[in-house]
């Protein structure tokens, strides 16, 4: 109330985001409104704190990793365009969705892969699995048992026995479980 948002969305910016992400005009305007709502200091970008201030996200065991996925290449700020590019992975897809679109099955899988692949070297090691498991369950499962679970998960997916999960192996594992619907958010028009 009182002070109006200092930032306004330019029409060409909307157009560009529409082409990049496939979001409709109305969706982009609504998400921009959400973006400015999260941007508490009104400086035109979001910081990690802005994200973690959302209670429903903060109680998510994977919150840190989910927030990481918005901050690519070590940037400390997320502008609206990057914000939208990350969200675009969660648009529903169908058989006609081109493979290079952000919401293609392959890119959705890549998104989850990056949740595991902490050092971004395109392979998941047992240590990385273990880290995610620790985030999930905290101190509620003993280290030995977690290690056991990580070991078993690794062996299940590691088809060429090199003790690491490559993206191809990961993809084969994911495709079995209807990942496209699990990674699609129901956006309204």
């Amino acid at each position, binding site marked *: 109330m009182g002070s109006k948002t200092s930032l306004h969305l330019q029409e060409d910016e909307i157009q560009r985001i529409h082409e990049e992400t496939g979001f409709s005009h109305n969706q982009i305007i609504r998400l921009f409104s959400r973006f400015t709502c999260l941007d508490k200091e009104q400086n035109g970008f979001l910081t990690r704190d802005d994200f973690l201030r959302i209670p429903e996200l903060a109680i*998510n*065991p994977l919150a840190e*990793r989910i927030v990481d996925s918005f901050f690519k290449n070590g940037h400390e700020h997320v502008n609206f365009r990057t914000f939208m590019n990350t969200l675009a992975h969660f648009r529903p897809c169908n058989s006609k969705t081109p493979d290079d679109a952000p919401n293609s099955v392959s890119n959705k899988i890549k998104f989850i892969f990056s949740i*595991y692949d902490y050092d971004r070297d395109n392979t998941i090691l047992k240590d990385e699995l273990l880290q995610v498991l620790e985030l*999930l369950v905290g*101190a509620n499962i003993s280290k030995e048992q977690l290690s056991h679970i990580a070991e*078993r*998960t690794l062996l*299940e997916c590691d088809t060429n026995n090199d003790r690491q999960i490559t993206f191809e192996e990961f993809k084969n594992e994911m495709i079995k479980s209807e990942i496209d619907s*699990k990674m699609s958010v129901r956006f309204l028009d």
Partner: protein
Amino acid sequence: MEDLAVTFEILCKATFIFSFLLLLLVVGPACLGIEIGIRKGYIRLLMRLFQWGTRRLQKEGEMLTSEDIIEKENSINRLGSLSDCVNEPHKKFKLPDVSYLVKSGIEAVIDDEVTKRFRAEELPSWNLLTRTDFHYRFIRKPTCLPTKSADICVRLSILWLVGVLLRYCILFPLRLVITVFALSWILCTMLPLAALSDSSFKRRMGYYVNVVGFRIICRALSAVVTYHDRENMPQPGGICVANHTTTLDAAVLMQDRPYAVLGQIHGGFLGGIMRIMSRATKHVWFERSEVRDRQFVSKRIMEHVSDLNNFPVLLFPEGTCINNTSVMMFKKGSFEMPTTIYPVAIKYNPWFGDAFWNSSKHSMLQYLLVVMTSWAIVADVWYLPAMKREPEETAVQFAERVKAVIARKGGLVDCVWDGQLKRMRVKESYLREKQKELGELYGECDELGQDHQCVKRVRFNLSTTEEIEIEQTELSSDSQSSDEGDAETQDGQISLDDKVEEVLGQSEETEGLRLRHNGEIPA
């Protein structure tokens, strides 16, 4: 010299006429408790204007179609359970499992229950105030609209300009004068009252002086309040609890009947008024250091309530202002005492101006400035039937029950989150809770095998009967139970405990095998 005298005379006459009108149109009706209908007429006119604007915007296709951005599917609430995170009956952690939490996190980023509660409510159309969201673009950037909309842009811009002149040049000074008058009126009427010793006359006068004072304040803010179900109005000896949007809530309620206010002693502008008020009528006020001491607070409230000569206590158990779209967690403190609770629901009409006081953004005076330059304050107040804590009910459960009643009546969203999240981060323990749930799920699954996991999940879902039914069918198929078992499931009469025992018993035989199987995996 003569000029000066003439000017002085005119000024005197103007002041006289103004005072006369003030007395006739504001103070007189306020004392007698009648309404002339100026505010109501003004509100009706505005309503028609907004309707016209909305219709025109609809025609141009410039309306927002839906309120929500997304439809949430994986919401994890701190009271919910994560057990359906692994919704297929598989027994171990699998790589795709994280997708549930990832999607849930993304959904929270796009839309969540808490963040939007501390921001001005969004309207589906424009109410000709620049401060409300992006509908303002009709004036700012007419070029962004298709040419056919140019006409409506011009019309809306003119209307907006007329509105600005009216609100800032006529209404605002008028309101300011009446407010100053109202405050001095309260001061003048309460000071002699404060000198009187306690008697039934003082109490009767106290009632009258309070109500009239707040009626004038409400007139100053063009507050039009409709009171529903006045037969349930709070009575002495009880606590009135209401949802909280702004400090003006108190004024809105107090023009109908006086209350004793419970609160912290403020400093500055507000503090001064509070001190004068407390001399005339009994209020329950605390120093900042005393507020932390919950027992002391309850003791003081009980003392106050037990004297039927005192006004009922007015409490806002949310503890902070919410933007009038939802009711957030009620602090249990006020529900621990064995007194009658009078719930009251207040709903402001967002069309005429946003009543929400965002205290982290505006000071009290800034907020009043915004309110006084808005169209008006239009509110509905519902008095709800008195409630008492059931013998077996805890304070938290009772608070939940009262909150649900208020939310339903006021058409507000019943939200489980704590309003203090406006300023604070969520407690880490809630995250730990989630981890514990997941830990129990995965830990047990990987150790003991599938049957045991299902038992676990039945315990998880005990709160919802629907899910139990589903789980029961799963149980019977998982354990490949005998014909007898299937019959029992279909019957639906069998108690859950029996079923769980049955599965546990059967799984004991297979458990050993499973463990050995797990052991075979090379390390």
